[in-house]
């Protein structure tokens, strides 16, 4: 490339920037329903509430971070666990807003409901300034979650077959205690040890608490963790069956648990165990 070409290219590039980028819309915004968050306002809030763990550069190296497990989110990677969007895509603003509002149970991230909705929207806008990916990529399209199928014994039994077949037990364990054969070796994408969810504890999930949330968790995967997406390999109705079975692993008075307890009391001896030696996990 000649010097002249380079100069021409530089001049063109500069003009393109001046016409496209210098307007007031240049600043990072977030859009949640009819709320619009602004990064400049979010920056002040971030410095007050978030910087201690997530760090001034958003890279999870705040002064508290070394004492915290699991580690704070590193915003520079733009990889997020709780999304409504497929694996490998950016979450929506609403997803980030929900995460700030909900907090992450069993971690050091509290719920930020004490802030106003506008403040939370501003924080979301500011969080998005830490990675250039928010300028180059669009958020993914949220996955479609069909209406929940009826909670029946058939559904739970089929869910159990899937739990075996999809090898959920390899990490989550045969009884969902988070003690499967691969559990001890799991690390997140920054090589920190990480535990699979223990259903027997019965705590809320990090990404919500409803059956819909549970559906979303395994169909989108939790990016940055070992939990993969099953969207390509589980059909929507089958996914509801798996949701219904997973509920039976929790120590809670759900309809799923009630149906399953009654069945196991009568037919428990016929059940093939979940695990490496089982042909199907079914009856």
């Amino acid at each position: 490339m000649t010097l002249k070409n380079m100069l021409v290219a530089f001049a063109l590039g500069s003009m393109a920037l001046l016409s496209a980028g210098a307007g007031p819309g240049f600043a990072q915004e977030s859009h949640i329903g009819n709320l619009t968050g602004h990064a400049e306002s979010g920056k002040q809030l971030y410095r007050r509430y978030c910087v201690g763990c997530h760090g001034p550069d958003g890279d999870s190296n705040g002064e508290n971070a070394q004492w915290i497990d699991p580690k704070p989110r590193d915003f520079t990677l733009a990889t997020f666990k709780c999304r409504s969007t497929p694996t490998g895509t950016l979450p929506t603003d609403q997803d980030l807003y929900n995460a700030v509002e909900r907090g992450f149970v069993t971690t050091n991230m509290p719920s930020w409901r004490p802030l106003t909705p506008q403040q939370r929207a501003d924080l979301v806008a500011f969080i998005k300034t830490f990675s250039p990916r928010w300028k180059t990529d669009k958020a993914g399209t949220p996955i479609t979650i069909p209406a929940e199928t009826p909670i029946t014994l058939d559904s739970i039994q089929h869910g159990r077959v899937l739990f075996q077949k999809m090898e959920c037990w390899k990490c989550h364990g045969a009884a969902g205690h988070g003690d499967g054969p691969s559990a001890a070796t799991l690390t997140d994408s920054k090589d920190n040890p990480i535990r699979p969810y223990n259903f027997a504890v019965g705590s809320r999930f990090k990404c919500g608490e409803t059956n819909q949330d549970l559906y979303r968790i395994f169909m989108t995967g939790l990016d940055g963790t070992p939990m993969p997406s099953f969207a390509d390999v589980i059909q929507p109705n089958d996914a509801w069956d798996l949701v219904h079975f997973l509920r039976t692993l929790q120590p809670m008075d759900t309809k799923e648990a009630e149906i399953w307890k009654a069945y196991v009391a009568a037919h428990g001896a016929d059940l093939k165990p979940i695990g490496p030696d089982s042909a199907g996990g079914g009856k």
Partner: protein
Amino acid sequence: MQRKIFMLLAVAALVSSNGVISFAMPAAGSGAITGKVTYTGTPPKMKPIDMSKEPSCAKQHATPVSTENVATGPGNTLEFVVVYISAGDTGPSEPTAAVRYDQKGCQYLPHVLPMQVGQQLQIFNDDQTSHNIHPLAKVNQEWNKSQPAGSPPIDTKYDKPEFIPVKCNIHPWMHGYFVVLNTTHYSITGPDGAFSLKGLPAGKYTVTAWQEQYGTQTQDVTIGAGETKAIDFTFKALPY
């Protein structure tokens, strides 16, 4: 203000690099750069992998397979080194065929898979067990998908050049690399350490060799029309 200036430069750079691609036709040449990759020093011992937790994979290997992060051959050669043109290439041509990555016997085949930016990548699970394929991209977007036995191949591609470690969380011994390159001219060394970059027009090139544990080395090479030049790379091996 500083950020704006930075953006200005970034946009200018983007335009000028596009300029290179459109001005220079990807010319096919007949020059070549060939050579061998070797090491000096003591490489770490590759350890046998215990697959007893996954019997369906363990029984596929009569003798246990070894880790592959520093794979060597007779005569101090290094395997799985990606050698490619990192500067001087006249713009990559469109990738044509898809590249294939296999999960077989709880191993990644090949251990290191070079490909072009935008090239179709197909990932197969040939095993009787579930794998989750988890490429730990940082420049490209990270994703993580379950692929149970008998699932169709995963079809994907990468838009930006990057060295991406790949792992399976279910089988923690599985490690591999996607090497996404912005050039058509690349080669990966076999057990004999040999590489060959063919079809090069006359010109001045920077050739880079990348080894997953020992990083990169570069050499500048100038070749005439139809000329074949031999260069060698030597990595200093450390036993840890």
